[in-house]
């Protein structure tokens, strides 16, 4: 495996609150409407940052968010980033029945395919949870990777989890902005955690998965926080990791028979 840095973005706008507050998104305001920052400012800032760093990222788009923000979706596509599936409307997949989950994953797949002009090949669970059927459903739809697990420092085959021709590209909580901002750490402390995590991980494996969010509460898209993105990417590059999209890495690993 070529030393790989995955720069991933979980496109969370108003979706999480729309799902958990069980209310019409148009009636979400104030502290329930942090997600609007993503549409107004946050995602564009991340796109500008990636362009300046010459990085192609993997954008995990829930189909419901793509439908809410089609212009931003189009912009991600035209800038050359990979678009992958982040489910439909922030369903908790662990609670879905087999047929419900097939509907949710299927609808998300169809919507993204229609909007992209080609099928997504990767998935990340929108609330982090999977059912025992999820990987099998993705395998049937021809997905080449999942990126929802926390159980390894490097990619592995999903053949024991129902994905015979799929790989897992695990993410890392310490390398996710939301882990730190969700518990309201200052941005300096958040960056201390991220660099501590990255340096140790890098000494173990030639792989790191960074995860960013375009919101201002749990995400890194505020002007004051944004430089963290560039510093982490440059830190990774300096150790010889090459920014890749998830699909590219999955393809390389499939070719190597991993």
């Amino acid at each position, binding site marked *: 495996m070529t030393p790989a840095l995955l720069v991933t973005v979980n496109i969370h706008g108003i979706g999480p609150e729309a799902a958990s507050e069980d209310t019409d998104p148009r009636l979400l305001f104030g502290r329930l409407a942090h997600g609007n920052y993503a549409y107004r400012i946050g995602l564009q800032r991340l796109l500008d940052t990636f362009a300046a760093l010459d990085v192609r990222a993997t954008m995990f788009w829930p189909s419901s968010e793509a439908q809410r923000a089609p212009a931003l979706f189009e912009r991600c596509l035209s800038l050359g980033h990979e678009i992958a599936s982040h489910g439909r409307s922030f369903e908790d*997949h*662990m609670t879905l029945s087999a047929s419900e989950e097939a509907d949710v994953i299927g609808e998300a797949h169809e919507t993204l395919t229609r909007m992209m002009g080609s099928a997504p090949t990767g998935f990340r*669970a929108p*609330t*982090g*949870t*999977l*059912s*025992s059927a*999820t990987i099998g459903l993705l395998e049937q739809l021809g997905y080449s990777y999942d990126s*929802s*697990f*926390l*159980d*390894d*420092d490097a990619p*592995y085959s999903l053949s024991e*989890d129902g994905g015979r021709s799929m790989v897992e590209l695990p993410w*890392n*909580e*310490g390398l996710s902005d939301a882990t730190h901002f969700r*518990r309201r*750490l200052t941005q300096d*402390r958040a960056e*201390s*955690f991220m660099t*501590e*995590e990255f*340096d*140790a*991980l890098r*000494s*173990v494996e030639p792989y790191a998965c960074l995860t960013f969010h375009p919101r201002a509460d749990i995400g890194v898209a505020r002007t004051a926080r944004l430089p963290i993105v560039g510093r982490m990417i440059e830190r990774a590059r300096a150790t010889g990791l090459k920014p890749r999209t998830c699909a590219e890495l999955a393809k390389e690993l499939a070719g190597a028979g991993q």
Partner: protein
Amino acid sequence: MDGPAVEAGRNQNHLGIHSRGRYAARRGVPRYLDMLARHGIKATFFMCGYDAELYPEIMREVLRQGHEIAAHGYQHESYGLGEREPELLEKTHSILADCTGVAPVGWCSPSGRKSELTLPTLKRLGYFYDASEKDEDLPYLATIGGRRVDDFVILPNNTVSLDDAPLYVQGQATAAEALRNWLEELDAVASGDGYIHFSVHPRAGYGSGTPARAAAVDEFLRSAKSVPGLHFATLRELAEHCLANPSRWQEPRR
């Protein structure tokens, strides 16, 4: 180990965001076996019955490398068990004994809870130490059925200062901060006060399985080795040492 038994006890599957216990099996325990071998230290691994059912080969490898396995609940139960408690203690005991051919002699409560049924049941099963109390920094003889015994010892732990999870979760510490805290504890023991009962969890999430936090433990062990006269022991070895001379441990600070 705190493998997927923890998620099972919370009624969660072991996939996606609930795969932190699987990290212990895939990366964490192997990383710690290497670390302990490098340092020449023998440890006590508290194992849940459920994890032994899922990963019997890990259990056998831990013993092969000279470490002790002790009991830690079936699915890392975090609630009071009432009348089910003896049956669950017996279940985990059988699983661990059958899997490795070696019966555990020690136990630590997964939740920190005990009832009046706990010690009598453990004694009946052949255990001779419990590591769940937090009210001393030295061993002391247990009281079972209202009577102080001379064949069962309490080896207190300190899961506030000498544990990883509270520092990382409630404490929001970096690995560097946790290490500093533990080194200060080491200074206190080096100056003659009590013993160090150090507990870490080789899983992701609240534990120290992942590289940055494992490196903090690695450095702590290296520093501990440089304290003059400091001996490492498994809990079983410590319990056997105490019970060879029980009258010394009635009142440890006499």
